[in-house]
């Protein structure tokens, strides 16, 4: 019994040690004095924000990536990250109107595309109406899904119905759509051009017709009651000019409309 207990304790200690090793550079003296900034960001911002976080001087950045709608719902439920960055302007504007975040700014633009495997025969939207084609898209509430439906609304009714009839999954965020296409679970998915670039050639992007292309603008705001409002503002400023801007461009994001 005692022996078993001792073994358990040893195991427990090992697990603790592992966990301590895992928490990267927290041991360094410089890291421990920096405040920790919590950033809730749209799933499509993952690569750009990861790179930006590495270069961010004012704080150690912890990001949580998910569908913008889920993150906004968390904020409405009282979760308080320092920064909220969304794949549209509607959600941050609504949170601003509700007094939950500071005034949002538009910091980047993106492009909705059709993503297909690199060797796919799909050439455009009209191929999606073909019998047996399978499609993944974002669910209605997540920005990428809302943009996708807007595009489909611009199509003739029979074409739209045919495409919607081939949808096999409504994913909670854009990462889910990319995953389903990359896995070959579906033939095509509606994602942002930056998501396709992040797959490094595994997927290719097919442009949507210019008259159907939705304007995809990203909004960011400092959350009211943020623990580190000053660093949060720094983070937002850096997205407009500075390291954040560069990271966004490196990931393929476009400058905000009108900039």
């Amino acid at each position, binding site marked *: 019994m005692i022996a078993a207990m001792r073994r358990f304790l040893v195991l427990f200690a090992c697990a603790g040690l592992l966990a301590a090793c895992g928490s990267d550079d927290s041991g360094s003296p410089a890291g421990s004095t920096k405040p920790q900034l919590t950033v809730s960001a749209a799933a499509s911002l993952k690569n750009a924000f990861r790179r930006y976080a590495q270069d961010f001087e004012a704080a150690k950045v912890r990001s949580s990536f998910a569908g913008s709608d889920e993150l*906004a719902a968390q904020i409405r439920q009282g979760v308080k990250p320092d920064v909220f960055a969304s794949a549209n302007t509607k959600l941050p504007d609504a949170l601003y109107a509700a007094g939950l975040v500071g005034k949002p700014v538009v910091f980047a633009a993106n492009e909705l595309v059709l993503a297909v495997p690199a060797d796919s025969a799909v050439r455009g939207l009209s191929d999606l109406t073909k019998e047996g084609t399978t499609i993944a898209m974002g669910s209605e*509430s997540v920005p990428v899904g809302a943009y996708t439906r807007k595009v489909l609304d611009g199509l003739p009714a029979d074409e739209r119905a045919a495409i919607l009839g081939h949808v096999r*999954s*409504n994913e*909670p965020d854009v990462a*889910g759509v990319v995953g*389903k296409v990359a896995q*070959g679970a*579906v033939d095509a998915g509606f994602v942002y051009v930056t998501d396709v670039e992040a797959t490094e050639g595994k997927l290719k992007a097919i442009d949507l017709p210019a008259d159907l292309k939705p304007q995809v603008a990203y909004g960011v705001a400092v959350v009211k009651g943020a623990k580190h409002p000053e660093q949060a503002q720094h983070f937002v400023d850096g997205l407009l000019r500075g390291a954040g801007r560069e990271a966004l461009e490196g990931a393929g994001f476009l400058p905000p409309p009108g900039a």
Partner: protein
Amino acid sequence: MNWFTALLWVTLALVLAFLVFPVVAIFVDVGPAELIASLDDPSAVDALWLSLRTSLAAVAIIVVFGTPAAWLLATRSFRGREVVTTLVELPLVLPPAVAGIGLLAAVGPSGLLAPLGISFTLSTAAVVVALTFVAAPFYLRQAQAAFAAVDRSWLDASRTLGAGEARTLARVAIPAALPGLSAGLALAWGRALGEFGATLMFAGSFQGVTQTVPLAIYERFATDFTGALGLSAVLVCVSGALLLAVKFAFRAAY
């Protein structure tokens, strides 16, 4: 009551408060009227119906294949039995995301069995596969323990009276192990009803085809918190009723 007993009661009270509070909060936040209203939505009804069908299918598969397998593990000793038992229990401790990736790598569209034409994804069958994978160990573990606890002398008596092993299993061992088997079944069913991560990764989310109740709750959470609470409340009631039914059914029998 000495101090140690008092301490035990205090810890039980803390454990209970911690485990029950979030569940109670669901029902405090949503009134019965809203709860019923939230079900008056085709996507909620589809999700409930789909969850019921897929979890029942998974449980049926688990019982049919799991019962004899558990009997073998409980009654035979062979080289590597411990290893086999551990392998069978492994999905129990796997994160759902690992289960999802594993299923994709095994029976996904570009998985190991894809060249043989065996591939499920984004279909109701894929949901059943995911649920079976994550829930089976709950039944197998309980069933093995329940069979191992059956009094040897009953089994020997059955054999001395001329019954073969199959008959002994069906007529003596299963009835004697029934409380344990049903407890395992209830746990497996509950786990199947609650499965989220592996289902989303492997089967996707589509109303009426692959969107089970947990996926519908997640989708509603963003836009319709009350609706998400309503569906959650239903899931709590169904799962709770399941556990209680099994507990009472076999208390009455013994």
